[in-house]
């Protein structure tokens, strides 16, 4: 865990246990080590104990703000959405009896279970096109009453697509998104959170990636009071490949959290996780937890995960917790990295020494820092729009 303000600080391994808890912790409250895949799962919210805020799963989240989504009855009715049309793409509401529901994973926390038990119909995006197709599903009218929702995204075997989930407007939403990447399919899923500034959004994404399939998952979180999006990806067949990217920009009073989980189930699977965030303003808060589990049968696994945070002002806090569990030693590679730092003064000096003003130099450095992820978004005009959205965020950064 790294918290600002601090000079450039890089987590060096081997020196001491992480502040999140480890071998040298003496407090009795430390949660015993548990294999990530053994976590309790249920679709029934009452099967989970009351959430008090001390739980490892919730302790970094502003519980008061998200409590209605954990404890209250959620409106699970269908809502208005718009979707672009294309050949080999089907977007429709489906019943709870749809065979795909529950095929990718089950809730591991109470708010996720609350959403699961409340939705009336699930919105299913099914892609069968074997030539690349772009699909954008937009929601902007969810309202500010507590809601639960369920979405299925199925990339049929050998299909190729980019699916954008575009979120705007007000929200008090807990939802589950199931993603099925069939054998040989290529799916890029981009979830863009540009909610109204008082919106609260909890989401669990569950993905299974089939044989020789490629899954690219990109989370872009810019607008909303609280955004907590936890993507789990299970590489269930040989040759499955996942790239999980995240880009976030937390302003004053904003909480953006992501708990990323990658499970290497089958042999010869590959994953890359790269989340980058910027924090600016009093109370800007981000959390990144990255769990990777290399299962006993996942020989030949190749995985690397990293998180980078750029702190632009005083009064911010970035938590960054990478975890790696290895049940077989017969792997190609496994690594993780985390760093949280301020502006690099030498970068600013270099740019200024070429006549560029300090303000413009800072803008270039932040855009450059985040552009590594923006460059991964190859969905039509979305990349250009995201660049403009980040530029707009930067207008709030003082020099």
């Amino acid at each position, binding site marked *: 865990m790294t918290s600002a303000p601090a000079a450039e600080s890089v987590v060096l391994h081997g020196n001491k246990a992480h502040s999140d808890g480890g071998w040298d912790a003496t407090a009795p409250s430390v949660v015993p080590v548990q294999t990530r895949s053994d976590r309790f799962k249920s679709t029934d919210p009452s099967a989970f104990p009351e959430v008090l805020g001390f739980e490892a799963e919730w302790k970094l989240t502003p519980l008061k703000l998200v409590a209605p989504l954990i404890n209250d009855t959620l409106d699970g009715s269908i809502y208005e959405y718009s979707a672009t049309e294309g050949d080999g793409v089907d977007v429709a509401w489906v019943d709870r009896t749809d065979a795909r529901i529950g095929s990718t994973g089950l809730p591991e926390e109470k708010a996720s279970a609350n959403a699961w038990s409340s939705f009336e119909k699930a919105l299913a995006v099914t892609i069968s096109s074997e030539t690349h197709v772009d699909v954008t599903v937009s929601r902007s009218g969810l309202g500010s009453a507590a809601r639960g929702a369920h979405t299925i995204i199925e990339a049929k075997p050998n299909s190729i697509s980019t699916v954008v989930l575009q979120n705007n407007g007000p929200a008090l939403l807990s939802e589950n998104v199931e993603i099925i990447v069939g054998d040989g399919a290529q799916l890029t899923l981009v979830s863009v959170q540009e909610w109204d500034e008082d919106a609260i959004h909890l989401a669990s994404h569950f993905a299974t990636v089939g044989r020789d399939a490629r899954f690219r998952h990109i989370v872009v979180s810019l607008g909303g009071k609280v955004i907590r999006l936890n993507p789990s990806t299970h590489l269930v067949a040989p040759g499955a490949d996942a790239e999980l990217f995240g880009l976030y920009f937390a302003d004053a009073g904003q909480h953006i959290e992501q708990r990323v989980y990658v499970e290497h189930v089958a042999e010869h699977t590959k994953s890359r996780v790269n989340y980058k965030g910027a924090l600016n303003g009093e109370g800007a808060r981000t959390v990144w937890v990255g769990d990777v589990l290399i299962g006993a049968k996942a020989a030949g696994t190749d995985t690397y995960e990293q998180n980078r945070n750029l702190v632009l002002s005083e009064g911010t806090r970035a938590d960054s917790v990478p975890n790696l569990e290895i049940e077989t030693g017969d792997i190609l590679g496994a690594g993780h990295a985390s760093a949280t730092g301020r502006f690099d003064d030498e*970068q600013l*000096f270099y740019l200024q020494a070429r*006549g*560029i003003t*300090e303000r413009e*130099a800072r803008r*270039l450095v932040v855009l450059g*820092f985040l*552009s590594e992820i923006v460059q991964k978004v190859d969905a039509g005009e979305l990349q250009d729009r995201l660049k403009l959205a980040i530029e707009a965020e930067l207008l709030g950064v003082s020099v």
Partner: protein
Amino acid sequence: MSTLVIKNLQVSVDIEGGTKEILKGVDLSVEQGSIHAIMGPNGSGKSTLAYTIAGHPKYHVTGGSITLDGENVLKMTVDARARAGLFLAMQYPVEIPGVTVSNFLRTAKTAIDGEAPPLRPWLKEVKESMGALRIDKAFSDRNVNEGFSGGEKKRHEILQLELLKPKFAILDETDSGLDVDALKIVSEGVNRAHETTGLGVLLITHYTRILRYIRPDFVHVFVDGRVAEEGGPELADRLENEGYDRYLSDASVG
């Protein structure tokens, strides 16, 4: 004709438990169009002079002055100094992730000139300068200094020098770590800028090797934060044969 004048310059840096004086009264005057070599052993303050002129915040000026055509350089921000016509080719240029060379060059040119350069002539000029410095076209799309070899970084510095057309360039050990071919390419770039724009050059180096390709009009020998000796190009030849030992023993005695 511009002049860069340094008078009795005293500079210190913060060290653990206090400050350390590095420049102890440096006097130097550089006319636009002339080439001055600043030579000296390690730790004599050569690079401190370079970074102080450019305005690096690590160096504190405790006395003396730097003026450019009478204007007080020490009162200018780092970027204002660059816009006034000063350029520092750095010994260790930093990486700027996510900022491409083409974006960086255009942004810098726009900042220096106060307006964006017309696109077609600019692209042509960049292409020609890159060609002359044997820089591959693909460089434009790479991030600034990211994954560059030592030689590529130096050529990229000289590319900026040619494109930004400053009045004065300070080259901080631009020759270090270059093989002879790269040294020739870099030197040709400096000579081109000198001939076409009347650039004044402060060439900071430990070794005389680069002076075979860039002939200085004046040579200043730095020892222990002061100019210990000054002369014409013949002084460089003498240093080539004798090294710095003579000055070091002088310094320890005096």
